């Protein structure tokens, strides 16, 4: 048995806001009907005490509990994120200490926008497959909503989430068969070091085919050529998705029918979880896939690049693991209004002087 996924965990923020409330304030680009066509019922809001590190630890804790191994056996931790709270300092060291993975830990942070998580997966899978380590942990975590300016149409979909995968060679539930990538310097969205909010590269970059369609097709074509595969080899596809409508549109770009995408669609309830999106879709598919069925995992990162993986399901998830399915986890939420969402996401500038004893 080759190297592959031993266990996984997914984490979402608890609060949600209705995109129609945001629309009432900004009236940007779309009428209420467009929001309904996007299939967006709620958008995740980061809590006042949450950030990508807290979401990552929650997901990783679930993955370690599902595998039932001692944390000290994990020898590498690669964290993929485009919204690291620190620009200089790794999240991996903080998360490694929180999970008691031990000081002898390889790894660090990976950043390639939305494909940070799959980039981390490539690194850890390589280390495990080569026999350099026995177990490695991949975490993809993002809190995009903290870095999208109020009034930007992306605010309707930018949310937060995390997914963690434990990679090993024993008791594998899904084997990773191969991987390929495609990247070029194409600036569709970016954020500079001193800036807080995501910037847009212009319509020529983000509304034409040069971004996601070109790179996604490129990576998948590389994968098919390298491993002699085709669309028909796969029963499921885990793809990037900002909302439900986008999930099916992305499938069409690659030539996949609705029935191959359906099992991995979840973003209609929460929005775009950044680099964690494709991996959360994979986790959702693993819960329904049968033995021997192949899953295509593909991700897209602004800037621009795409990774593609071929994954084969082995064995069945026993009853009771994971503790809670992705669909059930999405149901555990509380809806708040837009002003509270802005307060929680630190978008109101607070008082810069001490106003009284208590404030």
């Amino acid at each position, binding site marked *: 048995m080759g190297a592959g996924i031993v266990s996984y965990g997914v984490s979402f923020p*608890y609060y949600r806001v209705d995109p129609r409330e945001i629309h009432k304030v900004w009236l940007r680009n779309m009428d209420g009907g467009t929001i309904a066509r996007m299939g967006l019922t709620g958008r995740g809001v980061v*809590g*006042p*005490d*949450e*950030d990508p*590190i*807290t979401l990552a*630890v*929650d997901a990783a804790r679930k993955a370690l509990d599902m595998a039932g191994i001692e944390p000290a056996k994990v020898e590498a931790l690669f964290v993929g994120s485009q919204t690291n*709270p*620190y620009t200089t300092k790794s999240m991996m060291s*903080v998360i490694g*200490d*929180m*999970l*008691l993975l031990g000081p002898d830990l390889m790894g660090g942070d990976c950043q390639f926008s939305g494909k940070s998580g799959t980039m981390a997966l490539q690194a850890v899978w390589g280390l495990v497959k080569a026999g350099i380590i026995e177990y490695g942990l991949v975490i993809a975590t993002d809190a995009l909503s*903290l870095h999208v300016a109020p009034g930007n149409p992306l605010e309707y979909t930018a949310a937060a989430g995390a997914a963690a995968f434990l990679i090993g060679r024993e008791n594998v539930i899904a084997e990773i068969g191969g991987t390929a990538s495609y990247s070029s310097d194409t600036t569709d969205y970016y954020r500079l070091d001193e800036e*807080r909010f995501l910037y847009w590269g212009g319509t020529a970059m983000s509304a034409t085919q040069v971004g996601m369609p070109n790179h996604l097709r490129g990576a998948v074509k590389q994968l098919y050529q390298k491993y002699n595969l085709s669309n028909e080899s796969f029963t499921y596809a885990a793809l990037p998705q900002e909302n439900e409508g986008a999930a099916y549109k992305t499938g069409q770009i690659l030539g996949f029918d609705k029935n191959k995408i359906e099992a991995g669609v979840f973003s209609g309830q929460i929005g775009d979880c950044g680099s964690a999106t494709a991996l959360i879709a994979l986790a959702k598919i693993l819960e329904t896939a049968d033995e021997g069925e192949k899953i295509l995992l593909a991700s897209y990162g602004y800037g621009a690049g795409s990774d593609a993986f071929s994954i084969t399901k082995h064995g069945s998830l026993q009853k009771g693991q994971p503790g809670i399915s992705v669909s059930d986890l999405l149901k555990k939420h*509380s809806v708040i209004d837009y002003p509270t969402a802005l*307060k*929680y996401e*630190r978008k109101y*500038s*607070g*008082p*810069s*002087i*001490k106003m009284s004893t*208590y*404030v």
Partner: protein
Amino acid sequence: MPIQKEIYKVAVQSTVRAWRNRFERYALTGSKCPKCGQIYYPKRRVCAECHSREIEETILARQGTIESLAIDYLPVMGNMECLPIIRAIIKLDNGPSVFADVVDCSEDQAAIGMRVEMVIRRVKRESNGNLQYAHKWRLL
């Protein structure tokens, strides 16, 4: 993030002290006396029961039951976004009690006797500006 430039510097914890006890906040590491079996949180060097100095490090359970509860409407400065805050004393499954916040629920949902599990949340900035994380608890 917009930093409130001076406010976080009032009533903050020293970075060095926070670094030394970080595992107590991150993973609930406490002390256990091998002689009389008493478990302590936070860590100690001498057992309070039998005065043995051979006390060892142990990792406490990440689940517990709410023993006592209070709703905080007027916290010490900072934390104004989280109002109201549910403060609780939580009895861990293997021994001592911890004093922490209960999150991801409204004040009428939390009650004494409910089961909770540990999560990590951001709590404050330390004296040099570093982000500090600690345990909070979420209803099971």
